[in-house]
């Protein structure tokens, strides 16, 4: 099994500089079609300019095909973004659309950056992102490593494991609220069954100490398969002959794991970290339905604070400033990370 790996927009072609991830599968159908195409080409009279003259030129087709997508993104993504940038410099409130809009300069940005609640939310988000990624990487990689043993029925069980990540985080998160109920909830019951702690003695969602872990557990349950799937692709991209060579050199299994498996799967692991970090930084739906940010503000991640500022306090200008800061942070960090990732990949 081979895997191909790509992060730039440019297509990976068979003649591109050799990369160890790059193997283009050529199937039988490909060759037969190729032959047919070649035969057609031979039969036809060579007329290199003929198809350039008839119909639209390639250049205009390229623009014709790409423009609708760009136009849609400009209208629904970029125009609102520019509007948000503008609003972030004003005192506009969306619940008072007719009030006079005044420019306030950088005040909104200053207030956001000096607001202890917002820093609290950033800390909560960081805690959430750190632990979910750590747990998901450990469990996900271990699972991938075990599935790569190719035991009987591994394909079936892999599909079963993948199911949670495809489901709606909102709808499933809402149901976890039921599982976490003290007394009647299944989670508390199972925990008390194995530990003997009375099931009504702790509240996963109601206690300040436990609620951050309640959302981490649900996120880990949901997204470990995602990490597992990417790690599995990484493990399968390592050619057998490297292990065979290591075996000839009498490298121990432990040594093989740390000198071959981990470094060669690293770009994939890093990619999984990137995708999970971006997603969890934006986390909203699952948390809002499980805890609503509570108790108090112990699970109030950045998106929930943003929603409160924008749609409950209606401080649209300030919320816009916060949104821009968040976007710049994610975008900047992701860019730096992708550069690091590409370095690891080229090693």
């Amino acid at each position, binding site marked *: 099994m081979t895997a191909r790996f790509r992060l730039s927009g440019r297509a990976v072609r068979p003649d591109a500089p050799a990369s160890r991830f790059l193997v283009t599968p050529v199937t039988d159908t490909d060759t037969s079609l190729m032959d047919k195409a070649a035969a057609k080409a031979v039969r036809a009279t060579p007329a290199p300019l003929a198809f350039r003259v008839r119909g*639209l030129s390639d250049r205009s087709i390229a623009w014709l095909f790409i423009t609708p*997508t760009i136009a849609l993104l400009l209208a*629904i993504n970029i125009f609102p973004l520019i509007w948000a940038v503008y609003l972030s410099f004003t005192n506009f409130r969306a619940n008072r659309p007719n009030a006079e809009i005044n420019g306030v300069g950088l005040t909104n940005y200053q207030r956001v950056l000096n607001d202890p609640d917002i820093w609290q939310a950033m800390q909560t988000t960081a805690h959430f992102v750190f632990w979910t990624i750590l747990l998901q990487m450990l469990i996900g990689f271990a699972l991938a490593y*075990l599935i790569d043993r190719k035991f009987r029925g591994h394909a079936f*069980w892999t599909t079963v494991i993948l*199911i949670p990540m495809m489901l709606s985080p*909102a709808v499933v998160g809402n149901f976890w609220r039921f599982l976490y109920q003290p007394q009647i909830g299944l989670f508390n019951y199972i925990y008390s069954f194995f530990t003997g702690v009375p099931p009504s003695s702790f509240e996963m969602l109601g206690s300040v100490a436990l609620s951050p872990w309640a959302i981490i557990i649900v996120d880990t349950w949901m997204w470990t398969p995602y990490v597992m799937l990417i790690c599995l692709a990484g493990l399968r991209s390592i050619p057998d002959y490297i292990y065979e060579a290591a075996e000839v050199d009498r490298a121990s299994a432990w040594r093989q794991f740390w000198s071959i498996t981990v470094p060669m799967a690293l770009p994939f692991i890093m*990619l999984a970290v990137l995708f999970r970090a971006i997603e969890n930084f934006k986390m909203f*739906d699952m948390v809002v339905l499980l805890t609503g940010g509570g108790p108090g503000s112990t699970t109030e991640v950045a998106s929930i604070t943003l929603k409160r500022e924008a749609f409950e306090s209606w401080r649209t200008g300030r919320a816009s400033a916060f949104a821009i800061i968040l976007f710049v942070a994610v*975008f900047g960090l992701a860019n730096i990370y992708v550069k690091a990732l590409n370095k690891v990949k080229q090693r």
Partner: protein
Amino acid sequence: MSTANSAHSVVEPSSTSKRIAGAIVILYAVITMVPLAWIFLTSFKSPPDSISYPPKIVFQPTLEGYCNLFTTRTRQTPDYIQSLGAPTSTCDEITRNRNMVIAGPSNYWPRFQNSLIIAFGSTFLAVSLGTLAAYGFSRFKVPLADDLLFFILSTRMMPPIAVAIPIYLMYRQLGLSDTALGMILLYTAVNVSLAVWLLKGFIDEIPREYEEAAMIDGYTRLQAFWKVVLPQATTGIAATAIFCLIFAWNEYAFAVLLTSGSAQTAPPFIPTIIGEGGQDWPAVAAGTTIFLVPILVFTILLRKQLLRGITFGAVRK
């Protein structure tokens, strides 16, 4: 599993290690299925059974949850219920046993319909636009192609709430708030980035020689695209469509902020299902079950393409 062969291979794990690996993975798979199994079981419980302690695994299955999901009910006196005559349906009977009568349909089905319309509408648009753009990026030298592609991807990095603030204002101005059209356009814009990235990968894999041969045969570029490239890309287009569909189906943040009534989809609606004295968990479970089943089917259909879809085509198998 042939132990005789694997004994000679240095890379083939031993059968004991395979068995241990299998046991751990199966254990994990079973544990992760527990919450989903619980949703399914709860949907067939009566409300008292659903909140009993200890949690009941063996119970008398009933359709009460599904009945409550699709209806609204009012409490009546036993005398009034007696005077109504024979119940006309199973749900009618179940409801009357609780001293209630069915007052009318609930909002679940309209919300579910909205989900269908918005998910399929936006998927169709996103895949159509995405296929065209992907072909453009794959086959032609587009100036700043990498920048444009990265721009398309970066639109996915925004927290949905950050996007929702200006969209909310814009839709209010344009009269698109709480309309299916507004939601379709928004989900199309979100999905089109995924569609372009995935489809570009799929189209890159179709050799250019096919179209070139067709064009030498007298096809125009458009005809070659339509008659040669599209049929070759069917699998990729289908997989991309399912990914877009799943996103639109599952989406919550935009839906809860931008819709309130007529265009509300199922995800913001399901948590609001309440019965007398709190959340009606069997009805919530029933709504959740119905909502999750299509995704379950799609996941199984997609399992070979999943990796590609969830990484925006960055990892291919």
